[in-house]
């Protein structure tokens, strides 16, 4: 039990982070806190992808040059998998774009209702 917990700690951390973000999105009353929760949620998935590319005793995926004949064989085990990391570069861009759109919408909501607390906004909508 303990060994499975420790051996796969990256998965446990990403699941915990994801649920923290989801809780914030569902339960928090303040819109900015919801948006922060959304960002934590997306960051958890970035952590998951980055951790699946990692290998033990491996280095960054840049070929090590040397002049001997053994330099021409590339051992995949010596390098971490760069593909999930490259994917996450794109996912970070998407996350930033989403965050920007969400914050812009929060500004629009604030300009209209002069508050960011969701219950106060809903009472204002009901009174209209």
């Amino acid at each position: 039990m303990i060994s499975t917990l420790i051996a796969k700690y990256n998965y446990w951390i990403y699941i915990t982070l994801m649920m923290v973000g989801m809780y914030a999105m569902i339960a928090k009353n303040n819109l900015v806190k919801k948006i922060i929760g959304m960002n934590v949620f997306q960051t958890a998935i970035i952590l998951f992808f980055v951790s699946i590319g990692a290998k033990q005793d491996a280095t960054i995926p840049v070929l090590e040059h040397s002049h001997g004949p053994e330099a021409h064989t590339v051992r995949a085990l010596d390098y971490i998998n760069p593909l999930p990391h490259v994917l996450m570069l794109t996912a970070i861009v998407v996350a930033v774009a989403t965050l920007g759109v969400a914050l812009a919408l929060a500004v629009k909501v604030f300009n209209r209702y002069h508050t960011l607390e969701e219950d106060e906004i809903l009472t204002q909508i009901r009174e209209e």
Partner: protein
Amino acid sequence: MQAPALLVTVPLLGALLISITGRLNRKVCFPLAAVSLGVSLYLSILLLFAVLTEGEVFYKMGGWPPPWGISYHIDHLNALVLVVVSLVSFVNLPATYRYVHRDFADRTGPFYALYVLMVAGLLGIVVTGDAFNLYVLLEIAALTGYALIAMGEAEAPLASLNYVLMGTIGASFYLLGVGYLYIVTGSLNMWDIASLLPNLYQSKAVFAAFAIMMIGIWIKMAFSHYTHGCPERMFMRLHP
């Protein structure tokens, strides 16, 4: 034939061009949007005939062979959906003309740029053969959708914000599922995954991947009744 790439690139560049020229002259926005959507309609009809006469079309982005590069793949159903999406968006464009020029007179540039960008995202979702590329295009279509919805009056920004939160959960779950499939198969190309999966059907990770991906897509689709109220409220705001 370069049609599959141009199909997505033309509206994408069109949106950029509209957002730039829209600041200088508002009158060019509508014709530019009509031209870029017209080109993608023409290309999708061309592709439909190509698929009907010669069979499925494979397109390698940048000449990279499929397991490494992103491939676009158009079979008979894809070609039909392409024609439907581009035709509906092209026909719908003149219908928005009066409403947009009346209500968003100072924001015609952003409106048409977002409209064309959304069509680019939707067309990309249909043609792409890469699981991660699908996620990116899904987010392009979704983000432009959020922005378009927020252009409405009254509660529109609040409804749009709720939709952003919901849509982000859905897209993120889809991405998570792609991650699990990548762990098991080591590939992101849909046909590569399809050829590798039959031997792996017993794997728990594949079950997890499918469950997570389907949850994500269902949230995006507004499959359950917990989510369906929100888009309705927003579209009512957008189209009175």
